[in-house]
């Protein structure tokens, strides 16, 4: 076990090591280089396609945040300001007034305001909305579909894979460019 014997052994090992290191470096470089060549720097964020959404309620509970980053939004341009709003009133509401017994939203997040008889404005109080989509279902089934769910980007932390997207039965989540982060329903 002399010094002379040790020396070549170590250098051989070092040689192999640096060889492998070079190979690994080349591998990582090739993979990332190839991907970089394809990557466009444009950032993307998660969003719900309202045309696909079925208002199943998963958005309210599958988000990694609580309350969910998904909220109901209202496309006022689509809204008909109905007196009997099916997103506001329970289907079997006894009356068409703002009493709690008539309201559809379980968290009372929709506010009603008279514009001009018989037109009423309905606004979402986002502090209260939990994104359950109940009003979305009502408005979609009987109304204009002016209420729909969207990921609010002041809340969303843009997970690598959105937990709601993984649980969405309608495949309604997709990544959209960050400079156009909303898929709002518009007048067709």
């Amino acid at each position: 076990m002399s010094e002379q014997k040790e020396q070549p052994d170590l250098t051989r090992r070092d040689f192999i090591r640096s060889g492998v290191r070079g190979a690994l470096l080349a591998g990582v470089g090739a993979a990332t280089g190839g991907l970089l060549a394809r990557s466009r720097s444009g950032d993307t964020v998660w969003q719900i396609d309202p045309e696909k959404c079925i208002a199943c309620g998963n958005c309210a509970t599958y988000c990694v945040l609580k309350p969910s980053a998904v909220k109901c939004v209202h496309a006022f341009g689509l809204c008909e300001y109905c007196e009997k709003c099916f997103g506001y009133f329970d289907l079997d509401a006894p009356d068409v007034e703002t009493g709690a017994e008539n309201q559809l939203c379980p968290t009372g997040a929709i506010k009603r305001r008279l514009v001009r008889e018989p037109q009423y404005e309905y606004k979402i109080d986002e502090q209260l909305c939990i994104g359950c989509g109940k009003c979305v279902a009502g408005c979609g089934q009987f109304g204009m579909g002016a209420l729909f769910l969207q990921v609010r980007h002041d809340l969303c932390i843009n997970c690598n894979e959105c937990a709601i997207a993984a649980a969405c039965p309608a495949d309604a989540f997709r990544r959209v460019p960050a400079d156009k982060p909303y898929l709002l329903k518009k007048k067709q």
Partner: protein
Amino acid sequence: MNASGTDIRYRASVACAVVAGAFCVIVCAGLIQNYFHSDVSDPLDSEQFVALKAKLQAYPDDEQLKSEVRRMDLELRREYFRSQAFGVRGGWLLLGGIVVLLVSVGAAVGCRKTISAPAPAGDQELAEVRAGTFARWSVAAMGLVILGGATALTFITPTEGFPTAIKHVEKPPSLVVHFPSDEEIGRNWPRFRGPGGLGISAYTNVPANWNGKTGEGILWKTPVPLPGKNSPVVWGNRIFLTGATKDKRQVYCFDADSGELLWQRDVTNVPGSVAKPPVVMEDTGYAAPTVVADGQRAYAIFANGDLICFDFAGERLWAMNLGLPVNMYGHSTSLAMWRNLLLVKFDQGGEGEGKSEIIALDGLTGREVWSKPRPVPESWSSPIVINAGGRAQIITCGNPWVISYNPADGAELWRAKCLDGDVAPCPIFAGGMVFAVNTVAVLAAIKPDGVGDVTKTHIAWTAIDGLPDICSPVSDGKLLWLMETYGTLTCYDAQTGKTVWEKDLDMEFNASPVLVGEQIYLTGIDGVTIIIEAAREYKEIARTDLGEKVYATPAFMDGRIYIRSEKNLFCISDAKR
């Protein structure tokens, strides 16, 4: 070393940690209790509240019930927000507690941290060997655990596949307006009398000798199911014909190489198609008009006004009925095309009845693009589309007008009054001149660059010798030939209108003559084809017999002639089978 100082710090840290830990446990318990108490996020899921609402359904006008619901709603929400606020406050307290706990525990551990003296080394070598063995065995055991887990997984999950079936591919509709180029048209025989309807073959390598009885020179022969006087139309390797009887109409597509009937389609289910059969003469039949093809689709019209379009695969694209033509021989004007427009000359009724018109339809959809009424009574002559005077023109013959239209919008370009009677021969265009002819009228040479009524200004010459009543003229630009039904062939000088020669062939003709290079093919009703020189003197080159009656003008393609006899479709070719 300051032992006592460390000790005090240690004890303080431990005490702090214990307090923080207890605090954390209490807060945590409170939070968990709160979490399960408020249950998910549903303030209204209280049974009492639901029952109250259900009751309200039964008594919708009970004001007291209503106020009860509202009160309870308010209460539940207040409770919900209180619980939420509790949760948030508790969360912060817990976080603070954990931080204090961590810091104090860290401090306590830090105080007690001493670099411990190593334990006495036992039999290091043995320990090392044993460690290696242990490691090996534990890794092997873990590998086995994975193996076992995977095996178990294969047993508990079904591996059933998915049913498969043949995928149905729906071809996308082509929306691009496509029409064949002049060059493509020139290579085919897309309409009555070939490219441009001029009766001129683009190929000169066609056979000159055949015999229908012995089969000599006949590449194939295929029976045509229903009778018809229309001529074969050839595009690529497809030949189109129609056939009809009083109450049945069909369109056929044959393979040009084998003669196989690729498809045959009944023309039924046409909106407004009249059940009553039209009046026709036996000379004309129910399927006199010739098909037109544009490389993608074939169009056919029948004596009862049914107009139909198929693609080359035999898929019906559209159909319509133009109304039962009022026409004493039966409708027999063939179709024409310009670019994507299908041109239907639909002359009917008596003089001054105003029933005649010319219609242009979009070939793909059958949608009408334009239509123009025509100031003529019924006629049989087919239109041609020419390029003359720097513009595209549709040339039509009627009694008494020869009218030229702009094919793009149907605007009338010029008209000349020179015909009379039941006009059947088609106009031709040769040597810069339009020639229109009918028996009992004249042969007129008209310069096609006029505007408005050009009767007085643009008719170069007229002549009256040997005027035909069925067969259309043919011209190479220098000479022009007229074939009269009873066999009188007249040759004119196309420039001057002087008769050059006249020859009585002593045969009956319905098919129009076709110019093939320097020769003219004349096919008589009895099936005999006479081939003469297209020259200033009459000279017969050959005479050959098909042995079956022929009413339709043959189609000439590369090395082949297609002749429709009364019952069959023949392909004549020098190339032996």
